[in-house]
């Protein structure tokens, strides 16, 4: 309970707020006195894992963050990457896992709202959203409720604001049963000259609160995100906020207008920890202080205390520092959009976050103490015990399939592989008329109006791989994202990431976290795609079981000339199919093992050879740019056979394949070896393409021809000398399509 004025602090109250005894001592040292209740609340929320990154900070240092295209790396509300012509892309990904577990619709909706604000607060117009989702099994009614609610929440919010949701991913695995993951990425477009930052500079400049009124909703949201879900979580329901996408749309337009006006010094959205984090972060970045009179903050409810006002996470609000003398002009702009903008304080030179109620000071804290002096923990880590047991895979004991057709059909209807149309049909993915490649291909592509340029976007992460080997899994997440962009004809530029893990106080989780980040860092370095920011979501566990380590990678790529964009669908009868890369004897972690052998997560994930990956990507990208490639699709879950089937289905045309069976047939067709891209080319370009691939020294195999109404796969003896080809698959494209397209819808009925 919040004490009334002058009452002392209840002993141990800091623990209820999530601070340790040592952290409480540190607070006292910083202040040189006991904090009062409001101050303690402010420290607790700013030093929560969610806001302070106290556990992850030392590990996040591994990420490469610099590169020739990077205009803004980690530390701001979103990253920025240059795309030439004085234009740039602003992007960031964020999680809303815990709120979505409790109230899927509003949890996901407000997640969209938050990430949109992170992008337009930089001055960029949001042009795309992507969503990366993880749930338990769809057989479970609760999963269906969560999945349905999350998708309609994203749809309800994003569609209304008018930002297209153009891509994403959805996976289903038991580890996410009670703790689904909802990660949303937003991408915006900006001219370099319009870039704004979250800094409160210029002593005496007014500080304004704009947008929605402050209510009691979401108090403690950040603290809530920093602990495990439990039975009592349901009781923390006030932590759930309701979003108002219409208000967000107004706020978006008004903020962009006000930023263009030149009156704005700094601007930041009120996300987790609301008024608290926005004010102290803006002051801290500028090395200034902020003084606010809380009695001036517009509120929805009567009788709100300073503590509640500072910790509320009411949505659709921003904190804006404007140039002296321009507050009235700024108010006018907001009024045009029927929004309130109120001066609540000013920038000061003493570095203090000083809060008053009228004349009376209710809190006084050095702003930088809340941000820069937050505790940092080098938590112990050690290899988890489960690892050696799950990594073991006695391949010899796994029988090869008798019926390859059945395996392929089962894979196509596995929710992890099946069409995600049920999801993206609910998202407006076309508003803005920039969507040149819609969801359903390897990466979405948006045009940049008025130029020949295109932006390619994707999110990727295979949590199962990361569970089996977080280092390799982390590398693969980055490599696959880049590969997806390359398949669209784009040069991968930069990464944002959302690191979803369990409780980091457990050495095993900490080990997963470190290894995943190390793997990602290595791949980012190798592929020259620096990290510009992201989000860490810990404590994704219930009753002692953590989710699969899931470091979602969001990546942005550039297509210089949209005439040379590429999609995954097979185009014309007679086109030649070539696989770039090579297939190894790898089955570990595959969807095939789960679907055909009931092994959810077993073996080691496929090997990641970054040198090979780089070569494959360069060769394919260059071939696309030379106009030699008619379709490109990467092999991911389900392997070669599924990739071929997907290209057939999206092209509405068949293919005939002859492949040398130099390894086990199931590994050949369903194994998930990395660094493979299936491309097609017109017959008259084959010679040139092959010459080029040879010069580039990448391994490749000519697989067959596009045509007909069936996908036919024949296996040949090694050496191809004797014997007839073994026809293992001959399936009508229409039948595969039916299974693939209908699988999720059928489960959701």
């Amino acid at each position, binding site marked *: 309970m919040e004490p009334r004025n002058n009452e002392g602090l209840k002993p141990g109250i800091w623990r209820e707020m999530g601070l340790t005894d040592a952290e409480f001592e540190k607070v006292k040292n910083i202040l040189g006195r006991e904090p009062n209740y409001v101050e303690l609340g402010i420290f607790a929320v700013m030093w929560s894992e969610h806001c302070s990154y106290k556990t992850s900070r030392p590990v996040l240092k591994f990420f490469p963050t610099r590169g020739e295209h990077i205009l803004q790396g980690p530390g701001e509300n979103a990253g920025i990457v240059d795309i030439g012509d004085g234009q740039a892309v602003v992007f960031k990904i964020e999680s809303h896992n815990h709120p979505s577990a409790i109230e899927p619709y*509003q949890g996901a909706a407000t997640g969209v709202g938050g990430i949109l604000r992170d992008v337009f607060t930089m001055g960029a117009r949001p042009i795309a959203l992507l969503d990366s989702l993880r749930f338990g099994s769809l057989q479970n009614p609760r999963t269906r409720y969560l999945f349905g609610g999350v998708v309609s929440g994203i749809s309800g919010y994003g569609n209304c604001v008018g930002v297209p949701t153009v891509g994403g991913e959805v996976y289903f695995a038991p580890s996410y049963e009670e703790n689904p993951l909802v990660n949303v990425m937003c991408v915006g477009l900006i001219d370099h000259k319009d870039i704004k930052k979250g800094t409160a500079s210029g002593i005496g400049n007014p500080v304004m609160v704009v947008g929605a009124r402050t209510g009691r909703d979401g108090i403690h949201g950040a603290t809530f995100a920093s602990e495990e879900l439990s039975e009592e979580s349901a009781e923390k329901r006030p932590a759930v*906020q*309701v979003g*108002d996408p219409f208000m967000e749309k107004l706020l978006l337009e008004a903020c962009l207008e006000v930023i263009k006006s030149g009156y704005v010094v700094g601007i930041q959205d009120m996300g987790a920890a609301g008024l608290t984090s926005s004010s102290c972060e803006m002051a801290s970045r500028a090395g200034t202080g902020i003084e606010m009179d809380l009695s001036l903050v517009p509120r929805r409810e009567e009788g709100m205390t300073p503590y509640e006002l500072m910790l509320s996470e009411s*949505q659709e609000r921003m904190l804006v520092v404007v140039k002296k003398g321009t507050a009235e002009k700024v108010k006018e702009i907001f009024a045009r959009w029927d929004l309130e903008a109120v001066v609540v304080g000013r920038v000061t030179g003493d570095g203090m976050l000083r809060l008053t109620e009228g004349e009376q000071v209710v809190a006084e804290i050095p702003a930088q103490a809340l941000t820069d002096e937050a505790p940092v923990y080098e938590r112990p880590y050690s290899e988890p015990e489960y690892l050696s047991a799950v990594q073991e895979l006695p391949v010899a004991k796994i029988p090869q399939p008798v019926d390859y057709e059945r395996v392929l059909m089962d894979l196509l209807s596995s929710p992890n592989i099946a069409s995600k149309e049920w999801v993206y049909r609910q998202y407006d993915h076309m508003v803005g008329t920039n969507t040149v490649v819609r969801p359903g291909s390897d990466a979405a592509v948006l045009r940049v109006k008025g130029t020949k340029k295109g932006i390619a976007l994707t999110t990727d992460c295979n949590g199962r791989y990361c569970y089996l080997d977080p280092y390799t899994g982390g590398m693969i997440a980055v490599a696959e994202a880049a590969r997806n962009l390359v398949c669209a004809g784009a040069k991968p530029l930069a990464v944002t990431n959302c690191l979803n893990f369990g409780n980091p106080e457990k050495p095993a989780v900490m080990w997963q976290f470190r290894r995943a980040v190390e793997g990602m860092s290595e791949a980012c370095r190798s592929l020259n795609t620096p990290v510009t920011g992201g989000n860490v979501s810990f404590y994704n566990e219930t009753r002692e079981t953590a989710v699969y380590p899931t470091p979602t990678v969001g990546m942005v790529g550039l297509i210089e000339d949209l005439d040379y964009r590429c999609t995954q669908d097979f185009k014309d009868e007679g086109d030649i199919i070539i696989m770039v890369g090579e297939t190894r004897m790898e089955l570990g972690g595959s969807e095939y093992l789960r679907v055909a052998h009931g092994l959810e997560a077993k073996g080691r994930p496929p090997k990641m050879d970054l040198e090979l990956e780089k070569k494959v990507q360069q060769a394919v990208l260059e071939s696309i740019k030379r106009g030699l490639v008619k379709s490109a699709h990467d092999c991911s879950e389900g392997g070669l056979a599924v990739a071929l089937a997907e290209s057939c289905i999206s092209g509405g045309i068949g293919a005939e394949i002859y492949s040398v069976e130099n390894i086990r047939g199931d590994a050949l067709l369903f194994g998930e070896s990395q660094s493979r891209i299936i491309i097609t080319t017109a017959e008259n370009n084959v010679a040139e393409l092959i010459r080029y691939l040879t010069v580039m020294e990448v391994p490749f195999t000519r697989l067959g021809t596009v045509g007909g109404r069936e996908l036919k796969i024949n296996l040949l003896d090694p050496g191809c000398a004797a014997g007839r080809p073994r026809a293992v698959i001959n399936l009508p494209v229409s039948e595969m399509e039916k299974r693939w397209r209908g699988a999720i819808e059928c489960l959701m009925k």
Partner: protein
Amino acid sequence: MYQAKIYITLRQSVLDPQGSAVTRSLHAMGYENIKDVRVGRYLVVEVDAAGREAAEEQVHDMCKKLLANPVIEDYTFELVEV
């Protein structure tokens, strides 16, 4: 046969964007004396139950499980025999 009239409303402290939008619009239309609008849902359900108590229990049940979202909503209902 019973008819249940079910009223589902957002909890008091939960933001009601719909209500605010309607209030604003009513004000713009000149109804300035409208102080507050809250928007909820209203369901009319025909229940074929043996008795009043059974029907009542069932409606409670349905509200909790499906019709209302207990995280942000409250419900009440009236039951009449028809």
